Each structure stands twice: as structure tokens, then as C-alpha cells.
């Protein structure tokens, strides 16, 4: 046995990854299959699952109904489609804003003197030592009607003798966007930083030497060569934003319901695991499709550098 192990490289490899494999199968593959099975079930009156093969949950998610209030045979209820669309567009807006904010900072850090870079990266990561929920809660304190920002603006207006009505910032899509951007910024900064830092300094010099001013160097050299970082960051931001519910729960209140909130509600409040499972699977498939289209278009970024 031991001898066979020494001789067979593939066996060694399998043995080495087997703890990970067992964990992944037990904690990901099996639960996912269970979710799929449950999603085709029916909800029992007591909130239990009746295992059968029914497409009811998916039909409900699609918004198509047969028994309509106005008496027609088929009608469309857009509520879930709206939630899905809201989630996708929020994830998209978050990703775009995060790229716009992260890129200059990542560039600044990557081109700073080597000994200062670690300090800057450390500062980027420091907020992550605080619990995720607490950080979102801090935004609640800042944005609410009697919050830090309104108080500050109020006293500023008072100094200038102006009338001030507190701004309604909390429980709006804007508040959720701010929270998302804040939460996921580091996940964009780090991969972009890494890809800019990898660009040899002589390439910037070569571009300048050949007559490119700093803006053209950015457009023709820096941006294309840091695409891998932006692609990686986009996946790291877009995918979790699609699924998260804490930010929208705390900063969006009842006003901004995302797919994550929908799923959470089905399991914890409506006690309908079958519909929750169906929504989870639809979210997953949608995310996969978006990611697939995106990586088809931009690649994972490696081929730009390695081809």
C-alpha cells in the first residue's frame, strides 16, 4: 500500500486533496442537491416539506398565475421578477461604483514606494476586523433621520442661519448602494492592486519614452494590463452582492427587498423552505449566467498576460 502510494503520483494527489473533497461534497454538493430536491416539493400546512415533483414554486417565481383576481385565465405578477431585477441592477451598480473607487486607490498603493505599500494595504484591511453586521449598523447610525450626517448638516445649516429639513436617506435604494459599496470595496482594491503591482516599472517608462503622456499610458498600458485584477474583483464583488441580505435588511428596511431577503424570509418568517430553495437555485443560476457571459467577454484575464 505504502509502496503503491510512493509510485503513483495521481494517488498521492487524490489523497492530498481528499480532506477538501470530503468537505466540499459534504458541505456543498449534498446540501445543494437537497436544496434542489426541496425546491420541487410542496409546503405542508405546518411548514414541513412534502417531497414530490411539483413546479409550483418555479411558476410562482416566474410571476405567471392561473387563478387571477380579474378572472382571466393567465396573468403576470411582476413582484419576484422585480426583486430579481433589482438585485441584478444593484449588484451591477455596486460593481461599477466599486471599480471607480477602487482603481485609483489600488493604483496609488501599487505605485507607492515599496515600504509604504504594506501600511496602506493594512489600512484597507483594518475595517474588516470589525464584524460585518456592526459595520453595516454603523452606516445606519450615520444615515438615519436623526443620524450623524443629518445632525452635522443641521448644525452647519444652523451656523449659516438656514432652514434645514433632515434628509430621508435611510431605507432607500441609495442607502443600500452606499452600504454595499462600502462593504465590498476591499475585495476590488486587493486584486486590482496585485495586478498593477505586477506590471514592470520599465513598461510605464517605455510608454513614456515612446511618446505616451500619463493619460495615454493609463489607457493603453495600465488598464489593459490590470484587467485580470478588475475581472477577479468584479466576480468577488458581483456574486456576493447578488446574494447578501444583511445590508439591504438594515439599510433598506422593508423598502428595498433583494433576492437574499426573499430567500431569508421564506426560511425564517414565511416558513416555506420549498419556495426559498427554488429562489436560491434561481439566484445561483442567474449569477452563474451573468458570470459566464462576463468571463466569456473579458476572460478570467490571464490570457491577456500569458498568451
Amino acid at each position, binding site marked *: 500500500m505504502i509502496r503503491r502510494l510512493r509510485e503513483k503520483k495521481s494517488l498521492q494527489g487524490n489523497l492530498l486533496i481528499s480532506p477538501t473533497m470530503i468537505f466540499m461534497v459534504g458541505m456543498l454538493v449534498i446540501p445543494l442537491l437537497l436544496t434542489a430536491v426541496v425546491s420541487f416539493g410542496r409546503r405542508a400546512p405546518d411548514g414541513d416539506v412534502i417531497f414530490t415533483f411539483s413546479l409550483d414554486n418555479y411558476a410562482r417565481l416566474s410571476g405567471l398565475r392561473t387563478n387571477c383576481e380579474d378572472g382571466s385565465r393567465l396573468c403576470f405578477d411582476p413582484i419576484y421578477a422585480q426583486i430579481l431585477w433589482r438585485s441584478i441592477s444593484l449588484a451591477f451598480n455596486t460593481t461599477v461604483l466599486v471599480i471607480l473607487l477602487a482603481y485609483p486607490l489600488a493604483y496609488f498603493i501599487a505605485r507607492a514606494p515599496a515600504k509604504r505599500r504594506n501600511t496602506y494595504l493594512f489600512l484597507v484591511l483594518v475595517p474588516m476586523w470589525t464584524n460585518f453586521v456592526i459595520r453595516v449598523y454603523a452606516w445606519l447610525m450615520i444615515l438615519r433621520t436623526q443620524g450623524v450626517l443629518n445632525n452635522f448638516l443641521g448644525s452647519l445649516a444652523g451656523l449659516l442661519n438656514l432652514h434645514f429639513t433632515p434628509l430621508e436617506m435611510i431605507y432607500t435604494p441609495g442607502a443600500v448602494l452606499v452600504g454595499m459599496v462600502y462593504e465590498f470595496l476591499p475585495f476590488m482594491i486587493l486584486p486590482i492592486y496585485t495586478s498593477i503591482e505586477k506590471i*514592470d516599472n*520599465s*513598461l510605464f*517608462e*517605455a*510608454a*513614456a*519614452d*515612446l*511618446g*505616451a*503622456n500619463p493619460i*495615454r499610458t493609463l489607457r*493603453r*498600458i495600465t488598464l*489593459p*494590463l490590470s484587467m485580470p485584477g478588475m475581472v477577479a474583483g468584479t466576480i468577488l464583488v458581483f456574486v456576493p452582492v447578488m446574494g447578501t441580505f444583511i445590508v439591504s435588511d438594515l439599510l433598506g428596511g422593508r423598502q428595498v427587498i433583494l433576492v437574499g431577503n426573499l430567500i431569508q424570509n421564506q426560511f425564517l418568517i414565511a416558513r416555506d423552505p420549498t419556495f426559498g430553495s427554488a429562489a436560491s437555485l434561481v439566484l445561483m443560476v442567474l449569477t452563474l449566467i451573468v458570470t459566464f457571459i462576463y468571463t466569456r467577454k473579458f476572460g478570467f484575464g490571464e490570457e*491577456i*498576460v*500569458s*498568451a
Partner: protein
Amino acid sequence: MAEFAVELRDVVKTFPNPGGGEVHAVDHVTLKIEQGEFFSLLGPSGCGKTTSLRMIAGFEWPTEGVVYIDGKAMGRTPPFLRPVNTVFQNYALFQHMTIFQNVAFGLEMEKASTDDINRRVGAALEMVQLRGMDKRKPKQLSGGQQQRIALARALVKRPAVLLLDEPLGALDLKLRKEMQLELKALQHQVGITFIYVTHDQEEALTMSNRIAVMEKGKALQIGKPEEIYERPNCRFVADFIGESNFLTGTIKELAHDSVSVILNELVAEIVGIPIGTLRTGQSVIISIRPEKIRIAEQQNFTNNALNGVVKSVTYIGSETRILVNIDGVELAVWEQNRISTLNLQAYYSEGQNITVHLFPENTLVLPAD
């Protein structure tokens, strides 16, 4: 057209030292590089040659002094506004672009027309014999081919001056020798001033019209290859370019074209050529190339003859290198193997008594540092 293609006037460049204080990377260097010249900056690593080149390119700005390109003071003109182009040591090709896009990049920055770009890139690739490679990526080419692309990318802009920072350093010896001759021919063909940084003395001697030998931020000697080799003006240059035997002594008599020196190490008087300003009684260094010493079984001349014993004989093909011990002082003597024989040891063997003749015209007397 200005008198000089590039001029460095009393240029100083200091960098902050990590341990505090400043490092003088370039220390009061003055260079006048003529139009169309192949000029080399030669020296060991850290001598300031690359920093000097980077100040001409505009990647660094002088702490003191002025850099002139084509007669215009550059001041803090950024690299993209200077009429010079650089071939980088690691080539610095853009990996995300094809060969064509790499070479076209500089022309696009000039907003040249598409026709013009196609024509000039084609001609540039032709010039470096890489036509047909234009759709490949840099990684798909060999080191030597990448080197040529870097050259084409810089030359396609028709710069007033081409700066080359050890461009052949990453190539193997045989390819390097080929490229040396090719570069020289190319420079002749395009007629552009080349400023070439290298630590390889043979490379500098092979290619250059003139060489500046640098050490510790200073340009020690500037001259034609033969001047640098045959009349080094200090011990460092004599030692760094080729090989030299060194003896020390004191001047006994000084004439216009000859000087006699009493040696410190040996009881002997040597006559040689005075280099630089010397005076009677001054401490001096005597420098003599190993290939310029004559070895004989008996003393043929009375002047400049030293008797010694053969310490070792090394056959290296084109020549035989003999180490001679003269009362404790060792001299290297290289004899050309002019006769085809398998029995070199028949001439000289270890322990043999011989005489070395240092001809006065080959014996340089330099001021001691």
C-alpha cells in the same frame, strides 16, 4: 543641427541613502556626444552609467547641472516630449500587444496616419529582419528576436538619439557577438547617434567611436577605444579595460617623452612613457599589458630587463599565459601561439630561469592615486 547631439554639463545626481545621507550616483559628469557618434558609457555596476542614461531619457532629473539634447536644455522635460528613444535592458515589450502594435505604439502617439504607420512599421521590422512576425505576441519570440523588436520599436520613431541600456546583457555569448556587429552596422546605416551603456569592455571596444569609462559616479576617461586601451589615464581604467600588470615606484628622471622610475618592489630602474602631469620624485604606478611583455631565455637588452623564474604556464588556445616570479613580484605575460606545436612546454617550463623585457614604449607611467 546643434554641435553636439547630447551634452551633459557638470551633471550631478544624488539619491537619498536608505541609511541616511545621500549617494552621489553621478558626480559632476561632463560629456559631449557628437552627432552620429556611437558613444559608450562603460563601467562596473553602480558606477552611474545607467543613471546618466536615464537623465538623458528623462526618467530622472539632474540634481545639479544641465542635460542638453540637440542643443536644447532639457530641464524637467518629461520623457514623452524628448526626441530620444530607449532600448531597455529587459526590452520592456508590451505583452498584451502584438509585435506590430508594439512597434506601431510610438507612431500612434505621434498621431501618424494609418498608411504611414503600416509603411514605417513594415520597414522597421524589415530592418531587424523580423518581417512576418507582426501578428505574434512578444512571449512567442526568442530573446534575440525580442531584443530586435525593442530596437525596431525605438528606431521607428527616428529619434535624434537612441539610448541603449545594456541591450545585449540577457543574450548568450554567441548571439551577443553577432548582435554587436549587427548593431554597429545598423547604427552606420541609420546614422542616428547611439548612446550605449554596458559593463562589458569588449563590447564597448568593439562597437564604439568613443567610450567614457565611469567609476563611482565620475567619468574617469573619455576617448577612442584605442586611446582607452593603449593610454589609460589612471589605474582604474588600466585595470578595468583589459588586463594590466602594476608596479609602483618613484620618478628619478623626467623628460618630455620618457621617464625613468626606481621601483619600490624590486631593485631596478624602468623607463617608460609619462602619462598625465608628473614631476621628479613623485610616486607613480607603472602599468604594462601582459601581451606587450617579451619573454626570453637570456637577456637581450640591458634596459628594462628583469630576470625571473617561470611560476606557471597556462595554455588557452590562441595564447599561452605565463606567470613569472621576479624576486617575489609576479608578472603576467601572454605569448601569442604563432607556431602550431603540441609541445609548448618545450619553450618554457615551470622553474625555468628567464628574462622579461618591458619595452619603454609599452610601459606606462601614471600618477599614483
